[in-house]
C-alpha cells in the first residue's frame, strides 16, 4: 500500500502532472512455489510513455514478477488491472491481446525452425489461406536489420549465435501492437553496437507513447534511459524513484541494502612470463583462422570483439568441442584438440556462454549439476560420495553467494544470475589451471559482479591463467592485464596498459587496421 501511493505520487511528478492513467497496475501480487514465497505483495503502476526500470539482486524476483505481468505464470495472490478493470492473464496470449509483450531473460525459441518461422510463430502472415513465407521473410529481414542483426531469415535458429537469438527474440516481441513492452535483461548477451541500437529502439517505443519495463544489471544503461526506477529486494518492493538524480551507486545501495565497495579490484602487477597456453595457427573452419596467441601463468587475458567475431568458437575449438586444427601447447605439452577431453584433462576449464543450452541440466537438482564435470573428484572406490557432493554444494552456495530458497530446487528453477553462479562453481570445481570464462557476468547483479571479479583476480594470484571473453569492454578493461581483440574470425590486435581504452578496442574490433606486429610471432 505504501509503495503504491508513493509510486503514484512520484510518477505524477516524473510525468510532469500528466493525467494519463497507467497502462497496467499490479495490485498486491504474490507468488509462491510450493512452500517458497518468491514475491510478496508487490504493487506497481506502469505508465505510458515512460521507461520504468526494475532493478534488484539476483533472485530478487524480477523475472518472476515480469512473468506474472505477461501471463506466463499466475499469481498466488493479487490482481492486475487495466484502466480500472481487473484482468487475469492465464496465458501469454491474453496479455498479448491486451498489448503486453515480454522479452524473456532466457532465450525461448524453437531451435529447429528458421529465424523467420520463429519470429512469426503463432501469428503467421497469410495470403489466400496460405502462409506467406515471402512476406514473412521480408519483414523479418527488415525488423532484424533495424536491430542491427544480420542473420538470414532462412537460417535455422540452431545455427545462429546466442546474441543473434536474443535479437530475434526481441524482434519477435516487437512485431505486434503493444502498449507495454517488458525487457528482461535484453542486453546481457549483446555487445556495444547492438546495445546502442536496442536502447535507441526502446527510446522510440517510449516516444510512441507505449510503456517500457526494463530490467538490467547494467546500471549505466538504466541510468541513461530510465525515467523511473523500482527496486525489488527479496521478493518485496523497496520503492519507486525518479531516475533523475539517482546515481549508479545509489541504485546499488538500494538493491543490496548496504554500501558497496569498488566494482573492480585494484590491478596488481603482472606476475609471470611463464607461458601456459600457446595457440599457433588455429583454424576453426567457418569461424576463425590464423589464431596465434600465448597466455601466461597468473595472467588475466581478455578477448574483446563484436558479436560474431568468433571468440567463442576459438575456445570451443581448443576445447575439442567443435572441429578445429592447429597446434595448441598446454604447459609445454602439445595436445590433440581433436579429442574432446584433451584440453579438459590438460587442465583447461571452459565456462560456456549458453548456460541454459550447454551449461546446466535444467531438470536436475543442483548437486548433480555442480559435480558433473568433476565426477572423479566425488568418487571413491566405485561409488559417488553423495555426502561429499552435498558438502561441495553447500560450499559453492556460500562461496559464490548462490541465492536459493531451498536446496531441493532444480537448476532450471534458479534465477538467471544464480544459474550463472552455479555454472561458474561447476567449472571451477574441476580445479583447472587455465580458466576460460565466456561472458562471466552475464546476468549477474552488481554486488556479485564485484565478487566475481575479485574471484578471478584471486585465481590469477594463485598462478592460474584466466581468459575472459566478454562483450562488456569496461569489464575487460577493469580486470584484464592484456586484451586481444578479434574481428571476423581473426585476432586484429592486442592492447595493454595505457592503450587499454574503449576507443582503442573499438578501433581494432571494427577497422581494417591489422597490425601484424600486434600478433604474436
Amino acid at each position, binding site marked *: 500500500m505504501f509503495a503504491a501511493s508513493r509510486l503514484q505520487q512520484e510518477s505524477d511528478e516524473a510525468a510532469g502532472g500528466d493525467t494519463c492513467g497507467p497502462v497496467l497496475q499490479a495490485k498486491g501480487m504474490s507468488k509462491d512455489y510450493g512452500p517458497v514465497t518468491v514475491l510478496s505483495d508487490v504493487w506497481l503502476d506502469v505508465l505510458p510513455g515512460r521507461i520504468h526500470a526494475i532493478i534488484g539482486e539476483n533472485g530478487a524476483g524480477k523475472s518472476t514478477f515480469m512473468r506474472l505481468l505477461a501471463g*506466463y505464470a499466475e499469481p498466488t495472490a493479487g490482481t492486475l488491472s487495466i484502466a480500472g478493470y481487473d484482468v487475469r492473464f492465464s*496465458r*501469454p*496470449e491474453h496479455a*498479448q491481446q491486451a498489448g503486453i509483450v515480454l522479452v524473456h531473460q532466457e532465450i*525461448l*525459441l*524453437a*531451435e*529447429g*525452425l*528458421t529465424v523467420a*518461422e*520463429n519470429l512469426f*510463430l*503463432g*501469428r*503467421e502472415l*497469410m495470403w489466400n*489461406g*496460405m*502462409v506467406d513465407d515471402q512476406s514473412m521473410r521480408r519483414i523479418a529481414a527488415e525488423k532484424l536489420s533495424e536491430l542491427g542483426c*544480420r*542473420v*538470414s531469415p*532462412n*537460417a*535455422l535458429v540452431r*545455427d*545462429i549465435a546466442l546474441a543473434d537469438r536474443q535479437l530475434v527474440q526481441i524482434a519477435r516481441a516487437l512485431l505486434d501492437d503493444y502498449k507495454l513492452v517488458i525487457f528482461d535483461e535484453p542486453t546481457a548477451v549483446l*555487445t*556495444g*553496437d547492438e*546495445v*546502442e541500437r536496442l536502447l535507441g529502439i526502446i527510446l522510440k517505443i517510449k516516444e510512441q507513447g507505449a510503456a517500457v519495463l526494463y530490467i538490467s544489471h547494467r546500471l*549505466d544503461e538504466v541510468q541513461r534511459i530510465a525515467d523511473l526506477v523500482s527496486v525489488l529486494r527479496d521478493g518485496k518492493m523497496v520503492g519507486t524513484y525518479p531516475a533523475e538524480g539517482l546515481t549508479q551507486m545509489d541504485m546499488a545501495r538500494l538493491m543490496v541494502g548496504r554500501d558497496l565497495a569498488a566494482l573492480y579490484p585494484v590491478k596488481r602487477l603482472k606476475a609471470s612470463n611463464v607461458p601456459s597456453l600457446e595457440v599457433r595457427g588455429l583454424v576453426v573452419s567457418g569461424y576463425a583462422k590464423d589464431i596465434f596467441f600465448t597466455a601466461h601463468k597468473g595472467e588475466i587475458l581478455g578477448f574483446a570483439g*563484436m*558479436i*560474431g567475431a568468433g571468440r567463442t568458437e576459438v575456445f570451443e575449438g581448443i576445447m575439442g568441442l567443435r572441429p578445429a586444427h592447429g597446434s595448441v601447447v598446454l604447459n609445454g605439452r602439445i595436445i590433440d584438440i581433436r579429442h574432446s577431453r584433451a584440453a579438459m584433462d590438460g587442465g583447461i576449464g571452459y565456462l560456456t556462454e549458453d548456460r541454459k543450452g550447454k551449461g546446466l541440466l535444467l531438470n536436475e537438482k543442483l548437486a548433480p549439476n555442480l559435480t558433473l564435470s568433476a565426477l572423479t573428484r566425488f568418487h571413491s572406490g566405485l561409488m559417488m560420495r553423495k555426502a561429499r557432493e552435498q558438502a561441495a554444494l553447500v560450499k559453492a552456495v556460500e562461496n559464490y553467494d548462490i541465492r536459493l530458497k531451498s536446496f531441493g530446487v532444480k537448476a532450471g528453477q534458479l534465477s538467471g544470475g544464480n544459474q550463472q553462479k552455479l555454472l561458474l562453481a561447476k567449472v571451477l570445481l574441476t580445479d583447472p589451471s587455465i580458466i576460460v570464462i565466456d561472458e562471466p557476468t552475464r546476468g549477474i547483479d552488481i554486488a556479485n559482479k564485484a565478487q566475481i571479479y575479485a574471484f578471478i583476480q584471486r585465481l590469477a594470484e594463485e598462478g592460474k591463467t584466466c581468459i575472459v571473453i566478454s562483450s*562488456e*569492454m*569496461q569489464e575487460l578493461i577493469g580486470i584484464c592485464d592484456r586484451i586481444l581483440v578479434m*574481428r*571476423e574470425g581473426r585476432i586484429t590486435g592486442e592492447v595493454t596498459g595505457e592503450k587499454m581504452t*574503449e*576507443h582503442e578496442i*573499438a578501433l581494432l*574490433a*571494427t*577497422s581494417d587496421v591489422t597490425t601484424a606486429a600486434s600478433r604474436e610471432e
Partner: protein
Amino acid sequence: MSVITGSAALRQERDWNIGWTDFGPFLALLALLVVGFLVNPDFLSATNLANVITRSAFIAIIAVGATFVISSGGLDLSVGAMAAFITGITIMFMNSMAPEWGVWAIPAGMAVAVIVGTGCGLMNGLIVTVGRIEPFIATLGTMGIFRALITYMSDGGTIPIDRSLREAYRPVYFGTVGGIPLPILISIAVAAVASFILYKMKYGRKCAAVGANEDVARYSGISIVKTRTIAYAIQGACVAIAAICYVPRLGAATPTTGVLWELQVITAVVIGGTALRGGKGHVWGTVAGAVILELIANLMVLSDFVSEYLVAGVQGVIIIIAMLIQRFSK
C-alpha cells in the same frame, strides 16, 4: 559504453543445407535403383517398377500421416492394427449395404472408412494429449485394442468382400489413369495435400513448433493438445485412405492384416529425413522412404543370392547402409 559501429559479415547459409536433407532420401532411392539394375536388369522394367511403387502406396499414405504425428513430437504404433480394423469395418458395411444399394455401397463404405479412421486417430490423439500418456504406450495399447476388435469381428477368420462388389471395386487398386496406376496417383495426391498443409498452412507451422519445442509453442499461443490431436486425426484419415486402396488388393480383412506395418511406416518416415524426436516433417522424403523399403523387398525377391532364411537380415543391412550413406554424404 562507447558505440561500436561496424559490419559483421552477412551470413549466407542454410538454404543450401535444407536442400541436402531433402534430397538425401532421393539419392538413396537412386542408388538403390542402380544397384537393383546391376543385380537384375528386369528390376527396371516398367511393369516391375509400376508394381513396386503401386504396392508402396499403402505404406506411403500411412507414413504421410505419420509424418504429421512424428513431426509434432508424437508416435503411433497402432496404424497397422487400425488399418486392419478399418478394412474390416468397411467391408462389413459394404457387404451389408450391397443388397440394397448395389455398387453405391462402395463410395458409402469409403466415407465410413474415412469417418471411422479419423475417429480412431482422434481417440489416439486424445489419450496421448489429454491423458498425457507417453505416445509409445498409449498407441501400443490401442494397437492391442484394434487388433482385438478385428479378431473379434472376424471370429479369428477372414471377412471377405461381397462378390457383387469385387469387380466394381477392383479398379481402385488395379486401375490406371493415363497409364499410371491409381494407388500411385492417390498417394501422390495425399502427399501433395499433406505437403500443402505442412508447408503452406498455419497448422503445419504449429505442428513443427510443437515438435521442436513445446514450451516455445505454448508461449506462442499454440495449443499443444489441439495441434497434436489433429495430427493423430490426420494420421487416422490417412490410414483410412490406405485401407480403401487396400481392400481391392486382397479382397478381405483378417486379424493379420497390417501386422508390423507400424514399423515400416516409422522406418519410411525416418529414412525420409524426419527426426523421430519431432520438428520439421519431410513429406516427400517420407514417400521416397516408403518406396525405398518396398524396393528393397522387391530386390530380395528378384535376386537369387540370398538364402530364404536370411532375407530379413539382408534387408536390415541394406537399410542401415542406406542410412549411413545418407548420413555421411552430408
